[in-house]
């Protein structure tokens, strides 16, 4: 099914074209087609849910609607007329308000000022009326049944409160469309309820609301209609009453599991043992172990806490409680260099920000973690560096014009291989990979999976963090699912299915999952 359904008429009485709609929008970023021929609309007085896996295109739709990106083909329609949104302030001025995942507030200014920045209420002589600003802000918060001190400075406020301010911002500008991008990712149950009340109120005021979320139970509780995206394409749009959770998951996920090479490996002794690891505010009571030769998949939604766990294991952050043992000996890493020396390596999520040094060649990047080991007498020798890098380059089949190439010149897949090579050179015992094939084309992806498989066969213990279900399912010997910072499921290879993982990741406890430690 594709295209908006005509059941839209059921949901809201509309006279005229929908306030905002997408018509055949496509958007591509370098090697990836983020959206392909997507059409959907938002009706006034409805809450429209947008669901899909990580990477299905939800975020791109939000950015197109809020004016951050322009579609390559197709257009955004405002009241039926195609319009080109020049940028976020343009979209805002046209009545489209967006509450992004990360709040964009001014931490040093007060709540009220944040709400009204850009359209501050003025009094006599065009001067700012602080009293009016405070009163209006208080009124907005009162109408949302929320108690927030509008004279408080934003810095130090909880994520939930900051989000409320963003919503108040939208409401203060008389928006016709309100887009909420993963608003509940960082909220507790209480705060979620509060948010829902507010959103319903907004709907009652005739605003068209787009509610992007992973959490299916929320979509069912809040939304009138829902749209499912998969791989950048529109799958279906229908009233939420027409779906069951299973239906949604099926629409979100439905693809054949691709072929990834995974050679059977001998599982050896316990390399890494994690018990009761807790980092307040990020994750709680995480326990698992990794054996030599094993690939442990860490699945979950964005914000579930997986990267945070990896960061603690690698010494980037310090846990508040819990124990970690490597080879049976307790370890407390304070810096990555300590973790490195002990034999833990971490391939970070964002290779541009954290993984590679721009302006350095392949060889320079690959040798960076082992410099002191490689050159104990301080002086560096080009030849040793080159041959080491060339060795890994060949082993991992990195396509380049030579190890002196700047890493910026490589494709995403090859860049990722450089990052992996870098960590392999440290001869780790445990390798943590965080989204290793994100932004990597399919050919390189298969190769990266082969490499991971080979590494496990060579006796490494591997933790694979990935939001791509097929990848996690195909590669892992065991899958641990995190939900809101806690372990919600631990599945063995034979027991794991996409649906089960998805259920656990979205917080629904399916009947047959084994409970986590």
């Amino acid at each position, binding site marked *: 099914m594709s295209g908006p359904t005509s059941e839209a008429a059921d949901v809201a009485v509309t006279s005229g074209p929908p306030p905002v709609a997408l018509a055949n929008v496509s958007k591509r970023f370098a090697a990836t087609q983020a959206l*392909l021929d997507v059409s959907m609309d938002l009706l006034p007085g409805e809450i429209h849910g947008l669901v899909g896996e990580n990477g299905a295109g939800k975020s791109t739709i939000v950015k197109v609607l809020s004016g951050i990106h322009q579609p390559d083909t197709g257009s955004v329609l405002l009241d039926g007329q195609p319009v080109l949104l020049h940028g976020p302030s343009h979209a805002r001025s046209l009545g489209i308000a967006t509450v992004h995942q990360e709040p964009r507030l001014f931490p040093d200014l007060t709540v009220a000022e944040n709400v009204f920045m850009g359209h501050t209420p003025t009094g006599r002589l065009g001067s700012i009326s602080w009293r009016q600003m405070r009163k209006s802000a208080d009124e907005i918060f009162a109408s949302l049944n929320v108690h927030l001190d509008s004279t408080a400075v934003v810095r130090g406020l909880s994520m939930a409160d900051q989000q409320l301010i963003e919503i108040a911002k939208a409401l203060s500008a008389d928006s016709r469309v309100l887009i909420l991008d993963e608003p509940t990712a960082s909220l507790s149950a209480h705060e979620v309820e509060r948010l829902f009340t507010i959103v319903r109120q907004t709907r009652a005021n005739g605003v068209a609301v787009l509610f992007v979320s992973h959490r299916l139970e929320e979509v069912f509780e809040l939304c009138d209609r829902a749209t499912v995206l998969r791989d950048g394409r529109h799958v279906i749009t229908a009233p939420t009453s027409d779906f069951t959770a299973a239906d949604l998951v099926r629409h979100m996920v439905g693809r054949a599991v691709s072929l990834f090479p995974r050679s059977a490996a001998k599982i050896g002794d316990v390399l890494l043992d994690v018990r009761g690891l807790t980092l307040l505010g990020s994750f709680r009571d995480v326990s698992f172990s990794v054996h030599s030769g094993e690939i442990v998949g860490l699945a979950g939604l964005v914000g579930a806490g997986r990267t*945070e766990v990896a960061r603690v294991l690698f010494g980037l952050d310090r846990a508040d409680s819990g124990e970690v043992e490597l080879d049976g000996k307790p370890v407390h890493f304070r810096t990555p260099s300590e973790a490195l020396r002990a034999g833990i390596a971490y391939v970070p999520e964002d290779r541009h920000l954290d993984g590679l040094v*721009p302006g350095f060649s392949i060889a320079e990047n690959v040798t960076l973690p082992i*410099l002191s080991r490689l050159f104990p007498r301080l002086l560096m020798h080009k030849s040793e560096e080159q041959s080491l890098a060339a060795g890994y380059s060949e082993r991992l089949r990195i396509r*380049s014009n030579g190890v002196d*190439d700047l890493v910026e010149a490589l494709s995403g897949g090859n860049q990722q291989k450089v990052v992996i090579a870098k960590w392999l050179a440290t001869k780790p015992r445990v390798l943590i990979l965080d989204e290793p094939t994100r932004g990597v*084309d399919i050919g390189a992806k298969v*190769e990266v999976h082969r490499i991971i498989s080979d590494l496990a066969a060579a006796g490494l213990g591997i933790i694979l963090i990935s939001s791509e279900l097929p990848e996690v399912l195909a590669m892992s010997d065991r899958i641990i699912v995190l939900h809101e910072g806690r372990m919600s499921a631990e599945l063995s290879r034979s027991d794991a299915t996409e649906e089960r993982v998805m259920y656990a990741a979205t917080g629904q406890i399916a009947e047959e999952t084994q409970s986590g430690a």
Partner: protein
Amino acid sequence: MTIDPRTQGPATEAAQVPIEATTAPRANSRQVQSRRRQALSALARWEVLLIAILAAVIWQGMQVSPYFIQLDFWNSPNFGASVSGTMEVAIMALAMTPIIIMGDIDLSVESMIGLSGAILGVLWAAGIPIQVDIPIVLAVGIVGGLFNGMLVTRWGLPALVVTLGTLALYRGLANVVLGTRYVSNFPKEFTAFGFGYVPGTFVPWTLLAFLLLAIVFWVVIHRTWIGRQIFAVGKNKDAARYSGVRVATLKTAMFAVSGLVAAFAGIVLALRYNSVRSDNGTGLTLTVVMIVVLGGVDINGGKGTITGVILAVFTLAALQSALRLGGVSSEYQNVAIGLLLIFSVITPQIARQFRVLVDRVRQGRNRPAREPEPREVAR
């Protein structure tokens, strides 16, 4: 910058329906791949430019006065003398270079000169033998540098503000220690180091010291892995840290070295003038920063060579000498230095913006530029 653990990053759309089923390097990699050589040659270009300027200034200097190129290093305002007089800022520029490459700055160097001179003077006036005074002063330099380093790394305070504060603090300590008096009459053997020659040659001791230090710095920064780590931190501090580089230790060490070198420079200055006053060294920070920037070191970090800095030292010396011989007083020379500083920072910017413009025009018809999607992560 705070990393909010709540947001790992946007649910990106990467790797969905891939278009290329190939792992070959990007089509334009050939022009990018030679960018390594381009990058190296850009730096080389800057150094060639410096050599050209140096040559031009020397030529002009010789026009202004026949004494310009005389190798009598001390007695007249010729090139040689100017070089000798520049050695204090020269060695501080060497030590400032790794700090700037890593993205920081050390404004307090001029005050460390004053403080080290003051402590030297006080100890000497109290009768303590000079062989004991000098190590003490050097130790003070290290401590001062460590203080800077710790505030920057442990508390994450911007180096700019920290060293602005210590600029005042150390000068204040110099004032308190030495007051309004001045100390002179340092032992002849040591002042000989300040303005004497290596016996039998025409090379001043200070020049020798600078050249030795220059070699050490060059080797460390360009041939050891410490230098490699310094560049890594300058280009991407987070990636360096993730790769196991001990960023905090490295930065603190470089600040300590800067303090040590500044203390040494303070001693040299004291010996050269055979006097210390509490305002020794005032105004030198500007000159040091200017030399480093003129030498091609990017003020934003990540790029630079010691060779360039060495060339800049001689260029500055030549310029000052030529100006002085031409009758320009030392105050106006500051104008020249200020102008030179701004000029040497603006020029690469203009060049870069020009190149970006050319690139954009050239690629205008091709497919859209690489979308910096992953970089939008809120960090």
